[in-house]
């Protein structure tokens, strides 16, 4: 048996397609293993479907490296996050805790948004107050926002804890307090009047990060911006856990983001092990069922054969798609249901093929000699018939894997997939649904499609490389 496996690899590696296929599949496996180790198990529900986590990402932003190719400098997301204050100034009745962030803005456009997030605040008496200031490179300073931490409730006991489970996020760009402050600033400094509504619509960021011109437009002001978050604590034991300031960019990450701000590179990576899982599980179970039933059907014959063949006929003739739609309506979309359905509808094809092979093998002297020796039916099927079909079965399994992956992608694309899991099909579907094609979100639409094709191709290349083993007449001369 050793020799046969060795021969298999030798044959596989001798062909161009085999080599490429093996290289790709090794890459796929390594990436998938990496993802499995690094990602948490409930990634789908807890992270991907949790919009709060993605709040600080720009929406529908192309990948960060596109900046290299664009003529003008796009803003990249800058995140400042710390638990440790820059300065702590104790006082008589209040302790002032300062968080200072220096943002060096070099882009030709303003940030797409600014936000602040505070978490894990504890106090004993009076709730702390936080003030957010920004000092522009031209020296102007704007007090943007003032946050008073919610006071104690009637039955609460000290110490009072706020924002410990979920940090509190303020989208400064969309906050009406900030808008007023900016509007006043513009009036005072530049003598420009823009109503609050207009400012909200056009975006407060351009005003904060720009200088108004005569034509009513703003020029981006580049330079170092000093963001100051001053927290006033009224008790020594009061504390601020974490402070985070985000200046959103218009490009983000390695593969960009979708309309929910989700980092697509994270989602796409998750797709690797999922695709392999779907492909391999669906194809291996289908192969096991199809082969076993094919051998039993072909060898035992009679009523067993007839019933298995009729079952195969039934399943081949039931239309797959309507059943799936029906099931997802009843049970709800679920990855395991999809895999199960794929298996149920794929085994008949293999069974019918294997059965013909077995019928031919059965007429040979090998089976006759085994019966004469006294071998049981099970032994003949397992030990003598199955090995003769094994090369073909193995090739079928390899070939079926990309079919399963494509089927799942297609199903997800049609909206029948499991939306909580970022499979490639799902990402594609969401992209299309949000008009990705029309608006030109290429970084969202193209990568999942390309990855599906590459993965499918990998298996096809391996199957092609293995062909001479299945059909010895195709053996390549060495």
């Amino acid at each position, binding site marked *: *048996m050793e*020799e*046969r496996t060795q021969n298999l690899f030798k044959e596989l590696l001798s062909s161009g397609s085999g080599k490429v296929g093996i290289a790709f599949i090794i890459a796929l496996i390594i990436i998938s293993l990496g993802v499995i180790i690094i990602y948490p198990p409930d990634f789908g529900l807890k992270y991907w479907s949790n919009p709060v986590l993605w709040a600080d990402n720009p929406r529908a932003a192309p990948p960060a490296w596109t900046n290299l190719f664009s003529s003008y400098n796009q803003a990249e997301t800058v995140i400042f996050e710390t638990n440790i204050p820059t300065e702590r100034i104790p006082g008589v009745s209040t302790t002032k805790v300062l968080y200072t962030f220096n943002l060096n803005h070099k882009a030709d456009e303003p940030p797409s948004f600014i936000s602040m997030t505070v978490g894990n605040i504890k106090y004993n008496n009076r709730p702390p107050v936080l003030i957010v200031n920004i000092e522009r490179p031209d020296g102007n300073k704007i007090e943007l926002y003032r946050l008073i931490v919610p006071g104690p409730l009637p039955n609460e006991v000290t110490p009072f804890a706020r924002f410990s489970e979920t940090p509190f996020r303020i989208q400064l760009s969309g906050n009406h307090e900030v808008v007023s402050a900016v509007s006043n600033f513009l009036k005072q400094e530049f003598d420009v009047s823009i109503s609050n509504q207009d400012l909200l619509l056009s975006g407060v960021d351009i005003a904060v990060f720009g200088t108004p011109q005569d034509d009513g437009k703003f020029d981006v002001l580049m330079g170092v911006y000093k963001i100051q978050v001053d927290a006033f604590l009224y008790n020594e034991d009061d504390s601020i856990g974490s402070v985070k300031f985000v200046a959103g960019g218009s490009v983000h990450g390695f593969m960009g983001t979708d309309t929910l701000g989700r980092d697509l590179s994270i989602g796409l990576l998750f797709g690797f092990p999922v695709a392999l899982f779907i492909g391999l599980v669906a194809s291996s179970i289908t192969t096991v069922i199809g082969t076993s039933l094919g051998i039993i059907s072909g060898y035992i014959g009679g009523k067993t054969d007839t019933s298995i063949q009729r079952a195969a006929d039934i399943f081949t003739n039931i239309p797959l798609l309507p059943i799936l739609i029906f099931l997802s309506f009843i049970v709800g979309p679920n990855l395991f249901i999809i895999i199960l359905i794929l298996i149920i509808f794929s085994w008949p094809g293999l069974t019918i093929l294997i059965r013909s092979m077995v019928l031919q093998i059965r007429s*040979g*002297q*090998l089976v*006759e*000699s085994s*019966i*004469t*020796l*006294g*071998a*049981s039916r099970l*032994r003949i099927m397992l*030990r*003598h018939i199955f*090995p*003769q079909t094994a090369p073909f079965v193995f090739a079928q399994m390899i070939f079926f894997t990309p079919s399963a992956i494509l089927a799942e992608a297609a199903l997800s694309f049609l909206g029948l997939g499991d939306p909580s899991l970022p499979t490639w099909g799902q990402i594609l579907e969401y992209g299309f649904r949000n008009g990705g094609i029309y608006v030109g979100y290429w970084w969202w639409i193209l990568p999942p499609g390309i990855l599906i094709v590459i993965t499918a191709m990998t298996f096809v290349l391996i199957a092609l490389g293995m062909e001479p083993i299945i059909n010895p007449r195709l053996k390549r001369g060495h």
Partner: protein
Amino acid sequence: MKETRNRMIRLEDVKMYFQSRKGLFKTVEIKAIDGVSVEIDKGKTLALVGESGSGKTTLGRLTLRLLKPTAGHVFFEDLDITDLEEVHLKSFRRRAQAIFQDPYSSIDPFMNVHQIVEEPLIIHRIGKKKERNEMVHKALEDVRLTPTQEFSNKYPHMLSGGQRQRVGIARALILKPEYIVTDEPVSMIDASSRAEILHLMKNLQDKYRITVLYITHDIATAKYFADRIAVMYNGRIVEIGPPEKVVKEPIHPYTIKLLAAVPEPDPSNRFKERGVVEGEPPNPADIQWGCRFESRCQLQKEDNCKSKQPTLVQIKPEHYVACFLKDKDKS
């Protein structure tokens, strides 16, 4: 009356009819074996000689119960194995084995020689690993596939046809069976190696006192290795007797023609045509009344030939013939 204790195999008026579909609605009955009674004594070799359509292979299968006869009985020693179910036949299978014609397809290409020869021991749960290894070693020595260690690890595709056939023989013998059916064991082996395999089989038969049914179309090899030759034609035995008698003094018209067709290495052969049986071999699906050979027989026929089936009648000591024209000369 022979001692029944000496008898290994006995067939009693065995018939084997197959149903074959002809067209959409018609089925035809193929009479592969149409009334055969024969015995084989222990330790003896019976050669079953015939051409295609004679039913010899079917008869061999019947004695191994690979088929159930349509009528008649098959006895193995005193045991009637005609209707036994497969489960009850397992102990019989230990005592009755076969060596097949095609050394390329009767052994599993996915198993090595050791595994192939060991398999019967595993099926019948004989011995532990160590004992089995010794038995395999001995079997390979018996068939002279030595050094046995070297051959044990080889796979069938690495062996010649003759070597593969020896593996088949080793496998058949490892259970020390009492009865072996061998169907054309050397027809797929080179002419110059055939005698070697046949000699080997004969020696092993003598050594282990095995009863052999040797099925072949080659009456010449049957002459050397059998204690009795039975000539079959279209499902019936037409002549049976000791080899020298059947070959040198054949009685049945078919036997005579069969022997005339065997080429001997004589350069004058090319100047004369052989007196052969004309026409085509019989189609076992055709309904036959009377003697099976009648349509191709060139002798002067009598009335019985067309209407009744001749039975085996003793003409000379140990020599029987089924022919209405010949059973008059009794000596």
